């Protein structure tokens, strides 16, 4: 190879950076690495490595070029919703316990999902929702601070980390779904968190799903975080 060891090293490093942006089976990723290495090696052999790298752009863009997820069909809404239910089992369980407790105390159920996150501090009720007085309207809000906290830690940062690392969540895996950027590449941890923060908004979180009612491909936060959930079966 006329480019010498220097360009060989550059090719290797670029291919490694590109593969870090891909979430796919090890065989698929290896296939992309081999094809990209072959492409860049061929470019280097005729002294055109710089041009080829410039055309490919950043590692993320190059990853998008080789990703098979860009053209995958969007996830069917039913499967997406089912996956969300599986992923949110802890949150649902905490909510049910809260509902039962309120029912035992007041005799009538107050059903709110996702539960309102609020903390009773002395006589004040602190919540990210600007709708006072939350603790009276949603009595379950002040229940189970530890259970609710743990369920939310699972539902937001932990699931976001799993989604960032594997491109899917336990629920999504069960329904053969995958989360990728609109370019078909790995979702960053920050964006994976962003697409889940609606869970902190109590029942207001349902607004996030409204675009799906008229057949849009995703939630509001999918759009905001430049991500999409695709059908990974087939």
């Amino acid at each position, binding site marked *: 190879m006329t480019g010498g060891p220097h360009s060989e090293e550059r090719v290797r490093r670029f291919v490694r950076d590109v593969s870090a942006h891909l979430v796919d089976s090890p065989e698929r990723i290896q296939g992309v690495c*081999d094809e990209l290495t*072959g*492409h860049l090696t*061929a*470019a280097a052999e005729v002294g055109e490595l710089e041009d080829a790298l410039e*055309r*490919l752009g950043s590692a993320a863009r190059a990853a*998008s*070029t080789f990703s098979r997820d860009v053209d995958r069909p969007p996830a069917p809404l039913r499967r997406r919703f089912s996956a969300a239910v599986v992923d949110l089992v802890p949150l649902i369980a905490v909510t049910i316990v809260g509902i039962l407790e309120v029912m035992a105390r007041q005799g009538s159920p107050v059903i709110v999902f996702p539960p309102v996150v609020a903390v009773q501090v002395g006589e004040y009720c602190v919540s990210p929702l600007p709708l006072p007085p939350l603790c009276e309207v949603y009595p379950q809000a002040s229940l189970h601070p530890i259970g609710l906290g743990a369920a939310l830690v699972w539902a937001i940062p932990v699931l976001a980390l799993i989604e960032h690392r594997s491109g899917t969540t336990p629920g999504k895996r069960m329904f053969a779904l995958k989360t990728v950027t609109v370019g078909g590449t790995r979702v960053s941890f920050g964006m994976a968190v962003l697409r889940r923060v609606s869970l902190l908004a109590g029942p207001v979180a349902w607004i996030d799903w409204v675009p799906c009612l008229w057949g849009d491909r995703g939630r509001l936060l999918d759009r905001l975080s430049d991500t999409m959930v695709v059908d990974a079966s087939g």
Partner: protein
Amino acid sequence: MAPTLNRTEQVRRELARGTVELAVLAALDEERRYGYELMAILRGAGEGASEFREGTLYPLLHRLEDAGYIAAQWETQGRAKPRKYYALTAVGREHLALLLAEWRALVVRMDALLGGSREVRT
């Protein structure tokens, strides 16, 4: 007034959009080729072709492969690293014939249309 370079590029890109698939399949009609080879052929194919990028080629190759029009094969052939060759399949050859026939008919129709109107204008 001559159009700006930017606009020329834009027009070229728009006109080229529908023809890339035909160009790639036609390049594979003669013989099987690897990615960089296709890249060099298409970039050398005349004005506007220098706009052609990997970002266009590879998604197209993968789509054509999924559609069964081309098949990929890794080959070592006396090289240290294997190379991925793309070749036209029987279905791909049929598809190419269809595209070619449609393209030629389109060119004839457009020529007739443009030939007529150009005389009026100039």
